[in-house]
């Protein structure tokens, strides 16, 4: 075998160092495999911890942009009067008053904290009771919307019983119905046509705090979901344009690198590594 010499050796100093490094690396690989063989359970447990940790980190990295978006929309919505999704907030309930007045001067008040569920800004014309079949009486009830009319005008119309100017003040009627009733008193039968109206008011300085209802919370939550889904378009689009993170490939690699050690495979690998090392050191 011909051996030329470079600087007194056939290897330079750097090459000698490289050789030592190569042998050391081979030796360390063998020692690691032998350790894993002797402490198989510990090695597998350690692998499991590292594997699960790495998979978790990968999952966090995958989910992070979307979670962040959801967090931002959650926070933004929480700052609005609508409150937080999922959580039944304490909502400010202002005192509301419903006032019913008629042309005879009768006034009825209903007060509650919170909005009236069903309220209608209406003024209704009640006609005179007329005899009908089978000892029943019937009368006309015509309703008009008062939404675009001030409370003062409504009150004046009711107080002045302005039956003939209703369409001029309130526009076309919104409903016309006929009421039928029996067992009326004489006072009721003889009552002249009259007007009745509903007025609403809110007291901003008189309020309480009460938990929102399930329905309200579900609505806020649904709104949050829709907004979040729309906003998720941005991180999704960014990921599509910058596909440098393949989650499933990374998981595969982690599972491969930190898979549970199979004793037979380990022994085969050890045999191969030892054979190479001994061949170089014999």
């Amino acid at each position, binding site marked *: *075998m*011909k*051996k*030329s010499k*470079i600087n007194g050796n*056939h*290897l330079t100093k750097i*090459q000698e160092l*490289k*050789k030592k490094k*190569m*042998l050391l690396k*081979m030796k360390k690989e063998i020692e690691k495999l032998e350790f894993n063989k002797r402490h198989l359970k510990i090695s597998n447990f350690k692998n499991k911890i590292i594997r699960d940790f790495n998979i978790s980190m990968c999952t966090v990295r995958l989910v992070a942009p979307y979670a962040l978006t959801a967090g931002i929309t959650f926070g933004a919505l929480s700052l609005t009067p609508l409150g937080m999704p999922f959580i039944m907030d304490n909502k400010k309930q202002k005192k509301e008053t419903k006032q019913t007045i008629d042309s005879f001067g009768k006034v009825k008040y209903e007060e509650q904290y919170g909005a009236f569920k069903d309220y209608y800004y209406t003024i209704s014309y009640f006609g005179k009771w007329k005899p009908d079949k089978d000892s029943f009486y019937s009368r006309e009830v015509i309703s008009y919307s008062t939404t675009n009319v001030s409370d003062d005008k409504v009150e004046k119309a009711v107080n002045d019983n302005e039956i003939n100017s209703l369409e001029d003040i309130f526009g076309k009627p919104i409903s016309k119905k006929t009421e039928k009733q029996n067992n009326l008193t004489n006072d009721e039968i003889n009552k002249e046509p009259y007007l009745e109206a509903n007025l609403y008011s809110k007291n901003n300085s008189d309020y309480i705090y009460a938990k929102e209802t399930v329905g309200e919370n579900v609505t806020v939550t649904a709104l949050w979901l829709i907004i979040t889904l729309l906003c998720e378009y941005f991180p999704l689009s960014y990921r599509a344009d910058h596909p440098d993170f393949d989650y499933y*490939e990374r998981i*595969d*690699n982690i*599972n*491969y*690198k930190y898979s549970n050690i199979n004793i037979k495979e380990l022994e*085969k*690998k050890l045999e*191969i590594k030892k*054979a*190479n090392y001994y*061949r*170089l*050191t*014999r």
Partner: protein
Amino acid sequence: MAKKNNRKKRKIVSRTLSKRIIYRDDAPVFKFIDPNNNDKLSEMSGLDLQDLMILIDDYYIKLRNQLGFGDDITFGFEIEFEHAMRTTIYDRLYNIFPDETWIMVGDGSLEAGAEINSPILKDKIKTWEDLNRVCSIVEPLAYINDRSGGHIHVGTQTLGDNRDSWLNFIKIWSVYENIIFRFTYGNYLTARPVMQRYSEPMTKDFWRFYEKLKSTNADLNTIINTISNTKYQAVNFNNVSRKKCSSYKPNNTIEFRCPNGSLDPAIWQNNVNLFVNLLCYSKSSSFNDDIVEKRHQINNDRFSSLGYYDEIYLDQALELCDMVFSNNFDKVYFLRQYLKSFKVRNDNSYKKSLKFTKKGIKKVV
């Protein structure tokens, strides 16, 4: 008076060469071992082998302008690539080869890819220059990806009509398939993901066929029919002419499907060098049955999965290259591509090795 011929005649022991090649290379590895000698690397001492490994690791292989094959040896390439600018590649290819000798065709198994098929080639300077040009055209315009293979066809006449040559070939392939595969991974550390599907390892099947065919004293036709199981195996014999193996028909080839895709002409050349030398060795009278049998016993069914082929089997690799190659230059080229700086893959990805080739063409005399 005639001048004395003072030149030293270097004896080149060769089974494949009919061309005299004299290798000259100033690299340190070839000061350690003479490139034109045929040293038994498998019998080297450990210390010498350590030095050799380091010197090989510092050597970068280049495309050679010749390999030393005789004119009777023919081969061809199927260069696959993906995510390619196909129209541009086609146009540039056509500019250089207007006679369409090197032609681009579609391949449905590739993702937005194609393959370039070479004409029937011989070991000429022009062949390697053309290969270099083709790779240079494709490289900036395409990628080698998970599905890209690097199939090589070698004319069946290289193995010939002798049934023993065929049995030798499947025997040596079966026993050294793990070495051949890692070598033909090229600049990757592992098999491409679709390997099992399109280029199935044959170690067990070939041994089974070998034992059966040897014991039944089968004739050549039976041998070829038996080993031509499917096209999608590491070595495909479906193109072999049943009438006369040694005939120079265009499609009478043995197709090596195991190499990973590459756009490096040095790797293509190195692959074809191994395959041709394997075939020629199988045909030669110096085929060492004892070594191969002994190695089969040592292997002892250890390759239960393709993953084991990723490992380095140093002794076995040295043994193979001593048998198959007849000069140290070829052996160094083989070992450089096989060892890949002693790197073995440690995750599940289709990872590249450290670079071991250099651009340019090396002139051999």
